[in-house]
C-alpha cells in the first residue's frame, strides 16, 4: 500500500500524462498501468484554442487523483506562484514541486527547492519534492514538512535508469519512515523493479511509457515490474557474494574424490 499524506493507494505507480501519441492512448495506458494518480501541469491558456479545457475533461473521465507539478520553474518564487495557481485550479493541496537548475540535465535546483518547500508546507500544501539523492537536501525537505521525497534516478527523459544506486540505497536507509518515490530517468521495466527491490515506496514515470512503441503494453509491463520488485523486497533479497556457492548438496556427489577439492 502506497501512503501519501494519509491517503492509501493500491498501485505504487504514478503516471505522467504528457507525450502520448493520442488522448485515447493516454487513457488506455492509464488503465493498463493500474495507476490511481496522474501528474498534470499548468500552461498558458489561449482564449481561442482553449486547449486546457478539453484536456481537463479527459482527465476527469479517468477518475484518478491528479498531482499537479511546477515543471519548468527556475526559481522558488515561480514555483510557489505556480503551486498556488495549481491548488486553486485542481482543488488539491498536493504539489509535485520542481525547481529546475539546468536545461541539459534538468536537475533540481536544491536551494530554491528547499526555499519553496518551506513556504508551501507552511501554507498547508502537501509537497512531493523532485529532488536528487543528496542527503542534506533531503534532511532540509523533511524538516520543512515534506512527508514524501522524490529523488531522480537520472535526468528527466534520459531513460538511463539508476545512475547512483548506492546513494538511493543510502537515502532509503536514512529515511525509513519517509515515503520515497523515484521520479525521473527510468527507461525499462527492469529499472522500476530495481527501484522497488531497494525498498522504495513507488515510482513516477512518463516518458518510458508515453514514448514506447506501444505505450499501453509498456504501461502493463511497468505495473508488473513494480509488483515483482516490491514482492522481491518484501520477501527479503539475499546478499550478493564474491564467490560461487553450490546450491546442489555436495555430500554424496557421485565419483567424489577428496584429492579433487581445491
Amino acid at each position, binding site marked *: 500500500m502506497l501512503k501519501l499524506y494519509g491517503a492509501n493507494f493500491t498501485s505504487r505507480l504514478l503516471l505522467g500524462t504528457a*507525450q502520448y501519441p493520442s488522448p485515447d492512448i493516454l487513457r488506455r495506458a492509464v488503465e493498463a498501468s493500474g495507476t490511481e494518480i496522474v501528474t498534470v501541469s499548468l500552461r*498558458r491558456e489561449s482564449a481561442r484554442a482553449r486547449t486546457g479545457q478539453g484536456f481537463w475533461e479527459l482527465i476527469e473521465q479517468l477518475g484518478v487523483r491528479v498531482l499537479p*507539478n511546477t515543471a519548468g520553474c527556475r526559481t522558488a518564487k515561480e514555483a510557489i506562484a505556480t503551486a498556488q495557481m495549481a491548488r486553486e485550479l485542481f482543488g488539491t493541496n498536493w504539489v509535485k514541486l520542481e525547481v529546475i537548475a539546468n536545461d541539459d540535465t534538468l536537475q533540481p535546483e536544491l536551494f530554491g527547492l528547499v526555499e519553496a518547500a518551506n513556504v508551501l508546507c507552511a501554507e498547508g500544501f502537501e509537497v512531493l519534492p523532485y529532488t536528487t539523492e543528496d542527503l542534506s537536501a533531503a534532511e532540509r525537505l523533511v524538516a520543512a514538512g515534506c512527508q514524501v521525497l522524490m529523488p531522480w534516478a537520472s535526468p528527466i527523459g534520459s531513460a538511463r535508469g539508476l545512475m547512483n544506486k548506492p546513494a538511493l540505497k543510502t537515502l532509503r536507509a536514512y529515511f525509513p519512515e519517509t515515503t520515497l518515490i523515484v521520479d525521473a530517468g527510468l527507461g525499462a521495466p527492469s529499472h522500476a523493479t530495481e527501484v522497488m527491490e531497494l525498498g522504495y515506496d513507488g515510482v513516477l514515470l512518463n516518458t518510458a511509457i508515453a514514448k514506447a512503441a506501444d505505450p499501453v503494453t509498456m504501461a502493463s509491463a511497468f505495473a508488473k515490474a513494480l509488483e515483482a520488485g516490491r514482492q522481491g523486497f518484501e520477501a527479503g533479497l539475499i546478499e550478493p557474494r564474491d564467490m560461487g556457492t553450490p546450491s546442489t548438496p555436495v555430500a554424496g556427489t557421485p565419483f567424489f574424490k577428496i584429492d579433487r577439492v581445491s
Partner: protein
Amino acid sequence: MQILINGEPVATKARNLDELCGELGFAGAKIATAINGSFVAAVKRASTELSPTDEIEIVSPRQGG
C-alpha cells in the same frame, strides 16, 4: 491600456482582472491567474485593478510529467 497577457501585448479597456478574463472569453473557463509573478485567487480578481505595466498570466490544465 496596453498590458502583457501570457507574454503578448494586448490592448484592453478592462479595469480589473475579472473584467479582463471576461473580455478575453474566459468566463466560466477552468483557469488560474497571476499578476507580476504573484498568484491572484479567483475571488480577488474583481478587486485587483490593472495598470499599464502589468504582466498577466492566465493558465489552464495541461499534460505534465
